[in-house]
């Protein structure tokens, strides 16, 4: 087990290294560099005539004149050694400050969504497999198709519309007005939880649709396994049998795709955030892209990906623990 964990950790490090390279390239793609944009932002409207020399000076000051490979090492070194993601230009402060507690908000949204996804999809998928071919099963299949076809921003809009009608106007966002800028307190957390369900439902939607199908398919396979018949032939009561034998195995593919779900959720996050007015990393990421504030965008992209890779790692461990056959193989 130790060896298995170590191997996965090393794999994770290599992946993250490559990811950071890719993120860095994306940060470098927009035409012009920070010096241009910085100068433009700083002096525009002030009447100062910015010369190429001024920009060059800024460039040197920020270390932007060095070759790309050095800049990459500066950047990644800062992150790994000092937790320093560089400057956020649009906000004239450090990236870390801008991101701040949005990391925790996003983590909250993520876990609320994941928990909701599995609480719904696992029992329903199992039920659909046991009642295969019933009206409920067909209904769920249609729901799954729709769930995958509906663009998430549309779903967010529709949900927001109905939430507004049923629960009043203050349902969007993550906090009620009085808590928005208040310091953290228990009351604020409670307020957030009351708002969290809407983004969680919207973000969970397609993951639920997808996982119901996965659970249903594996559960159907498992139900036909000889080991289930054999247990039944030993007189194991039906409900206990379903849970102990097929259902226990039907959650394995769910566990193995946790990282995939996180990926899907983060992928939808920026757009859902816009519609629902969330003040999380998704919204910030989109804003950073629109402002071409690539340090912020790169940092967020890196953080989100790191979360996905880390969840992949956790899911590997969890799976190895759930399935005794894996430990030997690895």
């Amino acid at each position: 087990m130790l060896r298995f964990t170590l191997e996965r950790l090393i794999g994770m490090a290599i992946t993250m290294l490559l990811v950071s390279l890719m993120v860095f390239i994306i940060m470098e793609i927009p035409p012009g560099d920070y010096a241009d944009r910085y100068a433009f932002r700083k002096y525009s409207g002030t009447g100062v005539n910015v010369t190429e020399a001024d920009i060059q000076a800024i460039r040197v000051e920020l270390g932007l004149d060095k070759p790309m490979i050095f800049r990459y090492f500066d950047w990644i070194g800062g992150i790994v050694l000092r937790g320093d993601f560089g400057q956020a230009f649009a906000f004239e402060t450090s990236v870390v400050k801008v991101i701040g507690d949005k990391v925790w908000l996003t983590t909250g949204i993520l876990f609320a969504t994941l928990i909701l996804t599995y609480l719904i999809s696992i029992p329903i998928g199992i039920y659909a497999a046991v009642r295969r071919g019933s009206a409920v099963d067909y209904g769920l299949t249609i729901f799954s198709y729709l769930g995958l076809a509906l663009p998430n921003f549309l779903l967010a809009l529709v949900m927001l519309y109905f939430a507004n009608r049923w629960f009043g106007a203050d349902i969007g966002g993550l906090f009620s007005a009085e808590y928005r800028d208040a310091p953290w307190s228990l009351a604020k957390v409670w307020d957030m939880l009351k708002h969290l369900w809407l983004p969680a439902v919207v973000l969970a939607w397609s993951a639920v649709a997808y996982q119901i199908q996965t659970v249903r398919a594996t559960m159907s396979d498992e139900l036909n396994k000889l080991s289930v018949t054999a247990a039944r032939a030993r007189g194991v009561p039906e409900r206990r049998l379903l849970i102990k034998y097929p259902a226990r195995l039907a959650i394995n593919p769910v566990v193995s795709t946790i990282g995939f779900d996180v990926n899907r959720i983060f992928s939808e996050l920026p757009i859902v955030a816009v519609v629902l007015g969330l003040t999380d990393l998704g919204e910030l990421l989109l804003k950073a892209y629109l402002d071409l504030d690539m340090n912020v965008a790169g940092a967020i992209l890196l953080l989100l990906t790191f979360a996905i890779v880390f969840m992949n790692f956790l899911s590997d461990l969890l799976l190895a623990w759930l399935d005794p056959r894996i430990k030997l193989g690895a």
Partner: protein
Amino acid sequence: MTDMSDPDLTPKQKRQLEKEHQQRLKYYSASQWTLIWWRFKRHRAAMLAAVLLGLMALAGIFAEFVAPYGPVTRDTKYIEGPPQIPKFCDDNGCSLRPFINGTKTERDPVTLRAISVPDPDTRYYISLFVKGESVKVLGFIPTDRHLIGLDDPDQKIHFWGTDDLGRDVFSRTIYATRTSLSIGVLGVLISFFLALAIGGAAGFFGGMTDNVIQRVTEVIRVVPIIPLYMGLAAAMPKEWSTTQVYFAMTLILGLFGWPTLARRIRSQLLSIRNEDYVVAARLAGARPRRIITQHMLPSFTSFIIVDLVISFPYMILSETALSFVGLGLRPPSVSWGVLLQQAQSVRAIEQTPWLFIPAVFVVVAVLAFTVIGDGLRDAADPYSEAK
């Protein structure tokens, strides 16, 4: 088990047996593609989806002809107007030909804003092949005829209402269908060729090449895809023309769509590269490209096609999402996502719900591709008959 030369059979039974035999013969001698087609035809939902998608594609291809008006033509007399539903009857009696009532402008008694209200005393009849704006169908066939419209060239019908600039939602949706579907097609094609090259290299050479490619694939699979697309889309210079943006978008979408398919190609190649006929070809000195295209590809084309079909929805949804948040195509281009940009708020749901009609197209297109993909997969899988 029944023997046809059995003397006890009546001539009728014999004919019946003969017929069955012929059918079976046809079945066994049919090519793989014919078999897939037969099985696919039995899949009713998939057939329906294919027809729907075909209609959409046709409407998109001949958008200039199908749409009554241009995508940016404004009707200043009918701004944010609701859909006009053709009718056969009104207060003044019935007619065999569908028509709509005209509108007149009045002041809202409360807000004193100018609003359009239906005028029951005027009627405009709907016709096929009416005269209208001059357009070039397919970009080179000039015509001023349009599939459907009003007899009176000075009046306009807006089947699905108009937006805040008085542009016809129906026409815009038709044009958007062309853009969105074609972006999907180009994106899928690009990622297909990338997948073929990358997966092919990994599967064919194996070893170190394979290892490196696997690592890169892994990286692309872990980065959340929409934020990644956004990063590239954000980098498009603001001054680019709509055409440049269009092709850049297809490139961006295609650039990261390949990992799933590449993986499939790789594993299929790895599993068959040791099969006798491939080994034989290699020993006979055939070149790698030839071995891949001539010997290895045909054996799993059907799987590739299925994968291609089911990767469409991702392209379409991604394009829609990017354009929706303003990082994809930009006005004056029209795509489903661009159109939906106008429907970003809860206010739009309440006041101009018809602006959401393009969303129906998105859902239908995505559903159709998914259902067709499932149908094709069932049809291509020889074991699906056992079910």
